[in-house]
């Protein structure tokens, strides 16, 4: 099993040792290279969905919940998402450089053409969702290699709208 922090970079593998329900990290690799494992011990807390986490001797309470392949973690007043991956699997189905619909909605306007060069942050198209307009922006500079939809199309969450190549 490999792990990544959503929005972060890199895949982790973790070696865990279990001593009567008290877990600690014996080894850790980031993208195949060994890194220092955190000084951490983790056990179940009294309440369901909660963990006692001791980091370098200081104790913290974590609330966790699993949704799909994601572990949602609330700790120290912040919320994080850690994703599980099959070992060796490639980066999800998301198309490299593609822009996907962040939520279900309707395409209102397409501001670029196929073959057009765009800069990072340039608005590619405008969607309507929840009665508000949202601008879909280029995550990086490049050339628009494919436009999958036209104005007026309804799209589901996660569908690739635009692909950007180099």
């Amino acid at each position, binding site marked *: *099993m490999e*792990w*990544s*922090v959503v*929005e*972060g970079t*890199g895949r*982790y593998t*973790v070696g*865990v040792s*279990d001593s009567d*329900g008290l*877990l600690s*990290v014996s080894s*850790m690799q*980031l993208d195949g290279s060994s*890194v220092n*494992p*955190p000084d*951490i011990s*983790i*056990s*179940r807390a009294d*309440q*369901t*969905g909660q*963990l006692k*986490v001791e*980091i370098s001797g200081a104790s913290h309470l*974590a*609330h*966790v*919940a*699993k*949704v799909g392949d994601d*572990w*949602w*973690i*609330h*700790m*120290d*007043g*912040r*919320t*994080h998402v*850690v994703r*599980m991956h099959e070992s060796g699997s490639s980066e999800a189905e998301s198309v490299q450089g593609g822009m996907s619909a*962040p*939520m279900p*909605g309707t395409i209102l306007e397409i501001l670029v053409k196929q073959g057009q060069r765009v800069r990072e942050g340039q608005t590619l198209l*405008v969607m*309507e*969702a*929840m*009665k*508000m*307009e*949202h*601008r879909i922006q280029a995550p990086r500079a490049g050339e628009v290699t494919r436009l999958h939809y036209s104005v007026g199309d309804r799209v589901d*969450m996660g569908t690739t709208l635009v692909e950007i190549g180099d």
Partner: protein
Amino acid sequence: MTVGPFESAPRPFSRVMVANRGEIAVRILKAAREAGLGSVAVFSDADASSLHVEVADEAVHIPGESLAETYLNSEALISAALSSGADAIHPGYGFLSERSDFAVAVVEAGLVWIGPPAEAISTMGDKISARVRMIESGVQVIPGEELTVPDGADHLGVLASCAARVGYPLLLKASAGGGGKGMREVREPKLLRTEYEAASREASAAFGDGTIYVEHLLTGARHVEVQILADSHGSCIHLNERDCSLQRRHQKVLEEAPSPAVDSELRQAMGAAAVKAAQAVGYEGAGTVEFLLSSSDDFYFLEMNTRLQVEHPVTEMTTGIDLVLKQFEVAAGLPLGIVQDDIGISGHAIEARVYAEDAARGFLPCVGRLSTWKIPQGPGIRVDSGVRQGDTVTIDFDPMLAKLIVHAPSRPAALRRLDTALSDLIALGVTTNIDFLRDVAAHHAFASGSVTTDFLDSSDVSALSMPEADPAVLVAVACASQRLGLERAASAGDLEASDEHTGHSGDPFRTLTRSFP
């Protein structure tokens, strides 16, 4: 048969139907119960198992999925009231709350309308007539005009000349609505056309009317609004101001009372102007007069919201007055029972709007199932929530999940309480703006009380965020959760934990209307 609180009032009623959903429906239904009134909820197909249905004495199903069939369907709402034996309707905010034709229809059906007179709604609801009335009454307004495009005329020409008269920068607004929908800023003429078209489209989609109002944009101003209360016996008082300067694209993010920018002299002047505005339209009930406050302490009438506001709790916390209860009393024809001198300010209150949205990705609304939802508790903490643990957040409605309100003796203490309470508000399974709210509240600009309405839109939001946690620690926690089998424990825990907040502990039937995938 117990005697209700308003049996002998001039306009008696004993059973209130709330023509709304979400947190505000819950708030009003609970207030009705507390006042000794019966409570009736309405729900669309998508809301069959929502929280507001659960807190009411009775809930009436209005079939349909679209808003037009359900929460905007005045005929169906009125017949729901009649069939359920309700004798009064509270509209909440949004939906039909500012539709004078609905107010008229409610009264014509023989029901008590818990809101201002229809004439006050229509005068204030139309930006032009509101402006004219304010100018007549001596309340200062911002330069602006409605765009009237004669049939067949070239709208671009009309638009350009209107823009030139009003003066850049401009704010384009939907004539028919509020809440940031259909609202666009235009700083230079070359963007006028695209922004106008976007605003008009949004206005058509949200309000069924694409008419646009062109206003001069005051930069570096604060949004300060005054809560007023008026009865049907000629009394009208103000309950001080709320400062809602922290906005993102004209949607309020944090609201507080009192305003850090208002001293007692200015408070008196703004309060007097708000009372004058309300009296100019023969107002009754609870209403809010919104002003823009310039850096030189000049204030201009923006609009009057003829309904309860989302941010009403900060006024309740600092004045100790239950605004919904006052709405009930005024609707029943009772006098206010309080005078201006009774209104003080106790401490400081701040409200944070908790949205299912992703601050890191342009504040896009998010959907999903709230597998964990734990709200903070303690002195000076109030959570007005429309959701429970296990609920699914969909795109059908506004993505606001709850409002977190804190109250403390001083503004710095309220800020600390807000930060602590936000860090104890746990929402897992759906991305929320909770972390963003903590970052913004801790930002020195907000902490020092000096933000103006353009602060968030002109700041780099990602630069606000606090240092990320160590990814190795997070990965270790996730890995341990998996190893310890917390996924099973977490889903089995749903029922137990949600009961804590609904007060239906151990009731096996609660689960029948809930989905546990």
